[in-house]
């Protein structure tokens, strides 16, 4: 972290409080051919917070999020989630099946593109139910009720719960994705540009829903966006990435009011 080096404060971090990390990634290295997508990235996410990851295209933020969803394995690095049954294991050492089960039970994700996150030919309630089914729920009435509750929590109009996503607007599709992601109360909710491509007004409403969910359920979220406005509205802490590295991280208000790294300053001031 270049900025910290210039700082005369010895950046010891006396830990006083009780917050134990929910998600810890250490030394993530990922190369695609000659391209170094991630060059030793460390990220920590604490329970109940929203961590924003910003950076330009190609900064590695989406690759990092895919790592968190165990869709990809890095050349080096470790990944821990604070889960009772995976306390000490590096999640990258899990096999495909274990990853799938872990993902189904403990990780929720909302993609920018609903075609990736949703089964477009199935009903919206079915999309939510599928996640419960994968986790082993076999009671029809309960599936239906839980799908309805989850959709309602995402502020989806539940009277349309049996419409297919194809028949819904982009904003509604994102709400279905969200309902699916939170159906099992995930340890961490990953949001990959969740409102990019929506109208500004719809985007604001979806962000409101996310905020409300975060407040009422204290869901731990990781939000990736290139849109500083979205990050500013949502995030408690911000990680700034550039060319596969974390250049700066801090409390959201500090990153936006007093950015240290030249790149962050450029980014923040370009927006203002």
């Amino acid at each position, binding site marked *: 972290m270049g900025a910290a080096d*210039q*700082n*005369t*404060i*010895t*950046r*010891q*971090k*006396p*830990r*006083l*409080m*009780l*917050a134990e990390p929910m998600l810890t990634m250490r030394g993530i290295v990922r190369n695609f051919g000659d391209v170094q997508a991630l060059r030793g990235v460390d990220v*920590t996410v*604490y329970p109940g*917070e929203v961590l924003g990851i910003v950076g330009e295209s190609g900064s590695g933020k989406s690759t990092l999020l895919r790592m968190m969803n165990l869709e990809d394995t890095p050349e080096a690095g470790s990944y821990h989630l604070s889960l009772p049954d995976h306390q000490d294991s590096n999640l990258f050492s899990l096999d495909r099946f274990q990853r799938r089960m872990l993902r189904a039970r403990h990780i929720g994700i909302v993609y920018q593109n609903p075609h990736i996150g949703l089964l477009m030919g199935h009903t919206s309630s079915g999309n939510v139910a599928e996640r419960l089914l994968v986790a082993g729920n076999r009671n029809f009435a309960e599936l239906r009720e839980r799908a309805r509750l989850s959709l309602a929590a995402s502020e989806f109009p539940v009277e349309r719960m049996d419409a297919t996503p194809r028949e819904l607007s982009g904003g509604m599709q994102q709400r279905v994705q969200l309902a699916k992601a939170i159906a099992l109360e995930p340890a961490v909710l990953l949001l990959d540009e969740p409102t990019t491509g929506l109208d500004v007004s719809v985007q*604001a*409403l979806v962000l*409101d829903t996310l*905020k*409300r969910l975060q*407040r009422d359920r204290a869901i731990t979220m990781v939000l990736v966006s290139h849109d500083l406005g979205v990050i500013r*509205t949502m995030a*408690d*802490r911000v990680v700034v990435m550039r060319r596969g590295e974390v250049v700066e*991280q*801090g*409390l959201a*208000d*500090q990153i936006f*009011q*007093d950015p*240290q*790294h*030249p790149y962050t*300053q*450029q980014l923040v*001031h370009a927006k203002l």
Partner: protein
Amino acid sequence: MTKNMPAAETVLSVQGLSKQFEMHHLKRTLYAFDNLDFDLRKGEFILLKGENGAGKSTLLRTLYRSYLPRAGHVWYHTAEGMIDLACAADVDIAVLRQREIGFVTQFLNARPRVAADEIVAEPLRLAGTPHADALVEARRWLSAFGVKKQLWAAYPSTFSGGEQQKVNLARALILPQRLLLLDEPTASLDRDARKALVDRLAELKEAGVAMIGVFHHPEDVEHLIDRELHLKAIKIEDEADHVVE
């Protein structure tokens, strides 16, 4: 980094605190304040004075860690020991902000599209008060600050600046914090609301809240002030002159 154990009632000890802004893209440095030392005790009220640009707001924001100090320490005393707010982990700062350290400004920083009473009730809810009770309390404060009843369920983003500020103040003051940083909370408030605010501050001071702040109308809070802290604008003209394009 050893420090003599201060008197038990000390909340904050600031030592050699300096702040400057490195404007990388302009290739220049802005100096705010340098080598500040002061203590703040329980129930104490410090008024910050100084001309425009002397760094009063900057100091408050540095104490709150919206700004990162360049050097020095901000020792915050808790029952479990001291923590240096200047370099504590972000997550610890976030926890302290939620529980113990409040920052009051004239600017609304709550989310749009949440009802005013819900915004005010939120700190109580986070502290574990049942929703209904929190709402009752929130409405009491809104009416104390003179926010009309018909606005309680409306979104503050549609309010006038003054009304927004009142919502903001009610939210910031509803829960007794341990340390309150006040950045011109009375600016642009009408007389009644100003009185409500000052009454609440007196009440909090009585309850032992340590406060440090900048006030547009210091005469409002005159009876609360224990000490004044004068800041002087720093004029350093070394690096700033070597602007290389």
